[in-house]
């Protein structure tokens, strides 16, 4: 059985940890979405040179573990003279990893808009800017939302890695409690519950968003 007295005593630790997890995630994901938008735009517009740079970035970002990226930022960069706080490294790390995933989800959305929609806009006389803004992007958003929501949830879960660079997120709290008191079950129970409390609402909002914007698929 779980030691409920222990659980209630240390639950506040997880609230503090959740604050750190959310802080890192919100800024990291915002950075990821921004990076994704820029990369998807460059790829869709087929801008030479920049496009090749984006491809290299996406391959490096997707094919290296977040832990390794964080070690590089936190332990590697100071050797080159860049010293960043652990929070900064965590946010940039999440943004760097998430940017490629977001970019691919958004690019898929843009490419899924049927050619005939652009042709209709052309025949009606819309400028390329109007076509992008009023025809292509609204439909691309509709198609991208499931992917983007999945990435948001993935990145929040992935943020558990930041405990490795001594950031006191929920994962760090759990490891700390296990290390100090050997209360493995209680600590893991609190950890799972905290993640569920953070992620379930996001998942529900995501499903609602998908339904709200699913016009492109009908």
């Amino acid at each position: 059985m779980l030691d409920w007295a222990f659980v209630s005593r240390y639950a506040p630790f997880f609230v503090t940890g959740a604050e750190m997890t959310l802080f890192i995630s919100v800024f990291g994901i915002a950075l990821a979405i921004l990076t994704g938008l820029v990369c998807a735009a460059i790829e869709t517009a087929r801008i030479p040179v920049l496009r090749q740079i984006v491809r290299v970035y996406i391959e490096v970002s997707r094919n290296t573990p977040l832990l390794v990226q964080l070690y590089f930022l936190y332990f590697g960069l100071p050797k080159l003279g860049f010293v960043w706080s652990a929070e900064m490294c965590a946010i940039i790390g999440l943004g760097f990893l998430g940017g490629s995933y977001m970019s691919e989800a958004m690019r898929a959305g843009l490419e899924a808009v049927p050619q005939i929609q652009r042709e209709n806009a052309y025949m009606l006389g819309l400028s390329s800017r109007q076509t992008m803004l009023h025809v292509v992007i609204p439909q691309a958003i509709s198609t991208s939302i499931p992917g983007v929501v999945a990435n948001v949830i993935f990145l929040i879960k992935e943020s558990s890695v930041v405990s490795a660079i001594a950031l006191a997120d929920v994962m760090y709290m759990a490891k700390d409690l296990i290390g100090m008191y050997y209360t493995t079950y209680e600590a893991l129970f609190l950890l799972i519950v905290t993640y569920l409390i953070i992620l379930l609402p996001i998942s529900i909002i995501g499903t609602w968003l998908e339904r709200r914007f699913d016009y492109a698929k009908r």
Partner: protein
Amino acid sequence: MSEPMLTVDNLLKHYAGAERNVFDGISFDVPKGKVLVIIGPSGSGKSTLLRCVAGLEPIQGGTIALNGQVIDRGEPGNEKSGRAKRSSQLRTKIGMVFQSYDLFPNRTVLGNITMAPVMVQKRPKPDVEREAMELLKRVGLADRAQAKPHELSGGQRQRVAICRALIEHPELMLMDEVTAALDPEMVHEVLDVVLELADAGQTMLIVTHEMQFARAIADKIIMIDSGGIVETSDDPEAFFAHPTTQRAQEFLRTFEFSRHRRTEKDGAGAQTA
């Protein structure tokens, strides 16, 4: 006949890497207020011809003129250059309705129709909305103005697409097999609208597989096949009754169904090409 609205002169169309030209110098014109129907077997390039006139396909030779003004001049080797660089204003003068009913899914029926006149022609929104409602009434869809495209049937969507093109008052309307993707019972409701347009004096260039409809609406007919015009006629009745060329005779025969033919040919070739 009156002066030509559209003049296609010696049009040459070639796809990159293809051995043969799609068109080897096609010439025809559409007089103002008249309806030209293009017929021909599948793969003869009817739709491509329409898309060239629309500016959706680059042409490699010849000219396309609207009201005597050249709007597109062929350039050899521009196969991959994409859509023609036409001004927004010029593009509003040519309306097009496509085969697949593809309204903008994120907008209501009314939103689909009012978008371009407000954004491109900068007309006041209340006026545009009033006209849009009139058009919707004309095609029997006034009560669906606030519906989203996915709530409509194919025939209804196609009628909305016609309104969307019409509201810009295009000088020329292009119709690319507008009923080909529809269930048979919806074909009539759409073609009736097109027939009404013709009566109202709208200049149109129509590609269709519906021979009865072609016969009913055409002022002028051309049949194309293997890169060129097989037969032109200013008298559709005569054309359908007694086509002059053997190729046209053969083609029109593919639309006939008879028990005699079935036993003779064992059913083969009874489809509409």
